């Protein structure tokens, strides 16, 4: 494949849910995004910002309302399930709730073998049971579990081990793209570090492209090369991880990073934002963030800022980006 073709491209993707009384919830509100091969994109934002919905739309687990989804240059927006199935091995998902994602009545070996039985091998032939068994052992070694785990049921494992099993299942068909929705947020810190390291190792060994949906900025920083910050269904800032987190251009990103309590005694507690995220059903006119923005000016309540380049490779949707000459002191 041409290395300059994005593994995943979104063009003005929208996902709208119809609510009673003619109301509409715009969960994803016009997002365009490219994920290049080998990239690890972190998708961050607060609950209800649409990051999980977007993650599901990327893999056509949810249909989009409008816009286009391209996987390796091919438009998959309206492909039928039957035409989509041969593409599925290339794109896989890891879910947040490791318990709910595994059928409690089936052994791990059976759960992991299913995708290998459903999908033919790359040469078009069905996999033999010997190849499947060999692959299962390979997968267990890959995620750091003993082969004896294959004969056991999901309940016999801890949260961290179950997440390893979920990762193994996602990797069974050697995907090029893995979308992970909050893969470590349900885990304790010491176990979370193990899984974060596992993702980094797997990328180095298998050359994967990842999209991480997460709310924990420190985890995203450890795992991602690029970060997209979402607020109320739209990307408000996108760029290289450390550029976005350490020199944010959008006031929301600045508030988000400042609000994370640092594990350092004496660090000044920062609380820049008042109030809660507005409902996505009645999102504010103009800039979607202006109701909570400490820098908001009259123009922000009227005119919606578009995502534009602030610096090369760094975009923000703000009329008065931080660090620019318009900054209000």
């Amino acid at each position: 494949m041409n290395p300059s073709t994005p593994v995943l491209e979104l063009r003005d993707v929208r996902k709208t849910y119809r609510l009673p009384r003619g109301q509409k919830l715009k969960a994803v509100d016009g997002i365009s995004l490219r994920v290049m091969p080998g990239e690890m994109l972190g998708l961050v934002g607060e609950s209800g910002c649409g990051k999980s919905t977007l993650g599901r739309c990327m893999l056509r687990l949810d249909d989009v309302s409008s816009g286009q989804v391209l996987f390796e240059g091919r438009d998959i927006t309206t492909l039928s399930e039957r035409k989509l199935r041969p593409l599925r091995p290339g794109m896989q998902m890891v879910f947040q709730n490791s318990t709910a994602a595994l059928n409690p009545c089936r052994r791990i070996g059976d759960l992991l073998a299913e995708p290998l039985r459903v999908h033919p091998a790359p040469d078009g032939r069905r996999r033999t049971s010997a190849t499947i068994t060999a692959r299962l052992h390979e997968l267990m070694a890959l995620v750091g579990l003993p082969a004896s785990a294959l004969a056991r049921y999901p309940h016999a494992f801890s949260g961290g081990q179950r997440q390893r099993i979920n990762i193994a299942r996602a990797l069974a068909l050697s995907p090029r793209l893995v979308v992970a929705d909050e893969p470590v947020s349900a885990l304790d810190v010491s176990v979370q570090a193990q899984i974060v390291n596992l993702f980094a190792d797997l990328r180095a060994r298998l050359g994967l492209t990842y999209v991480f949906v997460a709310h924990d900025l420190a985890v995203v920083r450890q795992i991602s090369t690029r970060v997209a910050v979402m607020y109320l269904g739209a990307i408000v800032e996108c760029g290289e991880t450390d550029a976005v987190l350490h020199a944010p251009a959008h006031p929301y990103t600045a508030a988000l990073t400042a609000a994370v309590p640092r594990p350092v005694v004496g660090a000044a507690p920062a609380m820049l934002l008042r109030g809660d995220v507005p409902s996505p059903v009645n999102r504010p006119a103009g800039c979607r963030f202006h109701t909570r923005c400490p820098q908001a000016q009259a123009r922000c309540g009227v005119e919606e800022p578009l995502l534009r380049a602030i610096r090369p490779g760094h975009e923000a949707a703000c009329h008065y980006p931080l660090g620019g000459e318009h900054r209000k002191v």
Partner: protein
Amino acid sequence: MPADRMPLLDVRNLCVSVPANGGMIRLVENVSFCVDEAEIVGLVGESGSGKSVTAMALMGLIDSPGVQVRGSARFRGQELVGMAPRALRALRGRDIAMIFQDPMTAFTPVYTIGWQIDEQIRAHERLSRRAARARTVQLLAEMGVPDPARTAQRYPHQLSGGLRQRAMIAMALSCNPTLLIADEPTTALDVTVQAQILELLRGLRHSHGSSVLLITHDMGVVAQTCARTLVLYSGRMAESGPTSTLFARPAHPYTAALLDSIPPLDGPRPPRLPAIAGLPPTPRERPAGCAFGPRCAHVHATCLPAPPALASIGPGQQAACVLPAEGTPLPPRATAQATRP
């Protein structure tokens, strides 16, 4: 602490056991700590470390059959362990209040927020409905709830997570408790809202003179909120001390490893996180020696026969580890994370 001053809450050798397979399993083993007036104390540990069980035992809220709570917990000199249910009920809500992690399940969905806070006030004080509602509205306003009179008339499901948690704190504070036990009060919230709630908790010391026992798994929350911290591991105390000392010079390898495994948001990004291998043992399979032994980088023969006793390390700092006594204490932590942009 001087012996003549009585702490607000003095917990000594608290043990909680539940029956299983014909024997008793100790969920919490010999936990001791105190909370002073207007002080915020952190109780940290991973899931299953016994932090919530400790809090529930203090409040007399564990009612599973056959549970045994041993040891002592004195609140202003009054013994809470084994207190008559009636006396405990008078204390609970009025002098000691609790905030739960999930405000959605802690409120009943069939009554309005205001009704539930009124009820708590009227259960402890003789007040008319009207006066109780006036207090409720005032409390909600103090917690930063916009349009408190109307919010009081709404049902829990009509409020956002942040507002529900504020209403929960308002309810907990309705009778001006001297001790507030907050069990993971911000875990279900987004960071920007978490920052607001933590600010609120810090302010309670001055506005209401309340002490807070803050249960959390987030070392960032501890660093920014608690004066002193207690680290639990597998139902036992690993370490306790002033938060600043614990973060700069942890004496227990578990505290040190826990702090190291947090991915840094500032400063250089390590290629790999120093994760702790393995898992915490369940109370059933806790080893005879140090519970952290199987995962500890410094484990050796003296750790194995019996759990190390809590030893005093420095001013106010205690750790259940043999290393300091053997003259090989852990080095102070590098302060790579101390910079903030």
